[in-house]
């Protein structure tokens, strides 16, 4: 009973936050509402006893992705009025298409095939059940191949990011402190011996 109440509270917060993400006028507010949405989703996952995934969601999405997102939003000067131009003009058509697509999806995916009758909730695994351990065991055995492939994928992402951003520019005036410290007197001072001139 208590669990159900907690679920509905979190679900309500999640829906509210998700709705505010797309309705907030200020992009920074939208990003912050997205953080809230992720956080509540993580709480709901905790209710499902997926504590590892919940913490991963908070660490990865809230901790890393959203911070990056906020940085980008703050750095780019997004002109919202330009983005919203034509919103009301295109709304009827967009809404009609969306409603049709939603109706079709609901028709196919409604409770008939994915309801509780066909996919019953898993039973109580007991207190000894450890979600983190189970995921770890499967990831390093049955799913070792996709796991290693994801590692290769991340490596490619690193190579791509570095090769696209690292460029040796020759026209910068950057200083090299190591060279400055190691400089010798001979490099800077040149003694010029000039023949003495006679005074007229």
């Amino acid at each position, binding site marked *: 009973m208590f669990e159900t109440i907690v679920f509905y509270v979190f679900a309500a917060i999640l829906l509210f936050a998700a709705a505010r993400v797309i309705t907030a006028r200020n992009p920074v507010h939208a990003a912050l509402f997205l953080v809230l949405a992720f956080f509540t989703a993580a709480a709901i996952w905790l209710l499902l006893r997926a504590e590892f995934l919940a913490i991963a969601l908070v660490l990865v999405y809230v901790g890393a992705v959203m911070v990056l997102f906020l940085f980008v939003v703050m750095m780019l000067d997004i002109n919202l009025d330009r983005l919203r131009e034509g919103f009301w003009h295109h709304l009827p058509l967009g809404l009609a298409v969306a409603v049709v697509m939603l109706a079709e999806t609901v028709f196919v995916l409604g409770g008939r095939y994915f309801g509780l009758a066909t996919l019953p909730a898993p039973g109580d695994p007991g207190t000894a059940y450890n979600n983190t351990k189970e995921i770890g065991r499967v990831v390093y*055995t049955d799913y070792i191949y996709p796991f290693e*492939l994801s590692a*290769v994928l991340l490596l490619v992402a690193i190579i791509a990011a570095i*090769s696209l951003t690292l460029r040796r520019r020759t026209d910068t005036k950057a200083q090299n402190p190591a060279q400055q410290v190691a400089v010798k007197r001979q490099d800077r001072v040149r003694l010029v011996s000039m023949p003495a001139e006679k005074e007229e």
Partner: protein
Amino acid sequence: MADDSLPLMFPAYAEIFLFVMALVVLMTDVFVAERRRWITYVLAQTALLGSAVLTVGIAKTLGGVTGFTFGNMFVCDLMASVLKLAAYIAVSACLVYSRRYLEERGLLTGEYFALTLFALLGMMVMISANHLLSLYLGLELLSLSLYALIAMNRDSSASTEAAMKYFVLGALASGLLLYGMSMIYGATGTLELTELASRISRGGPPPLVLIFGLVFLVAGLAFKIGVVPFHMWIPDVYHGAPNAMTIFIGSAPKISAFAMAMRLLVDGLLALAIDWQQMLIILAVLSLAVGNLAAIAQTNIKRMLAYSTIAHMGFMLLALLSGVINRNLLSAGEAYGAAMFYVVVYVLTVLGAFGVVLLLSRAGFEADNLSDFKGLNQRNPWYALVMLVVMFSLAGIPPTVGFYAKLAVLQSVLAAGHVWLAVVAVIFSLIGAFYYLRVVKLMYFDVPEDSSPIEPAIDMSVLLSANGLAVLFLGIAPQPLMALCLHAIEQSYGFR
């Protein structure tokens, strides 16, 4: 559930070797001076040669038995081995053709070789996938490497724009694919393709959900293959990317796209063939029409070849959709074999076409306009002849190999009873012949606008000549390659 024993590595030796060599290339390049770049180049070619030797060795050792490993996520059958060999040859040719072009533009870096090898690794993973997860990861590995390769020429805004377009549309396509996969998983409870096939044929999962997932899968697949109406990225990406990257995107990934279609539709969802064949008919007819008609209007040869790719992939789909006739698989081997032959031949031919474009490019000059081909015969009759053979093959004129590829596809289409489809395909191929022959006309009957000498490096001139001759000789004697493709399909799938 969890199996703690070490998985059998043997069927995946080629992938493991290529991965290690990609890392070796990456690290070696750090310590190699700019003027000794050839070391990296030789290492990359060695990696391809070593993988080819390993692939042949594995195929010989398995001796016709399909090898599964990594908890059935990886499959090594004869089709996989043949397609991998074709991919090595294509990538190796790309490296030879693009070396000078990249050198002149300062793009011949270690990252280029490493990313190319990683892209190839992604293709191999796709070719050998027996699990939706490994298929998807292979696809992402390939796509991510390609995005980076296209954007590598950072001083060109066209390249950056092409990479951005490809990235956004590629991400959208991946999303469609993943949504389809999740639907299939929801309906069947498995991601493993062979298991999926047996669960569907046992008739458990609700057909409506499966078809709903199938629609998204086919849409994602069509994006990756590049057929109408999911083709919009192809002309822009081909045009915007540097020539050396265009030849790479335009060749080897087509082989992996074919493998992906086979794995998804034939390995996994053959029981739904009635449904996906109808979808492929629409895609194929639209691609033939849009590809061939739009190519006529192009003045840029890369854009023209991009639209030609769309038309050719539509043609390949014609064979894929003729496999299952009234729920029987009597001619499935021939149809899928014809599709495989078509895609291998197409890649060989298009390598020659882009090879000539790269041959004519030089520092500060891209040679990507049709007018740059004017009077090529007067400038260099031999390369004009190579281009002529390649263009004839793309148009499907005998005795080049493109004719036999088209013939084999049309035979399987007729065997499936789609006479009207064969008629449409022939009509659009005739229309398509116009723009291929226009290139020939420009080369032989027009006065050259540009008289700079054509002096390719020795390896490039040898390989380009061999490429042109291969297109011609495979046309005169198509039987060995055709037999290999048919044998590969029949042995891998046990048709007949």
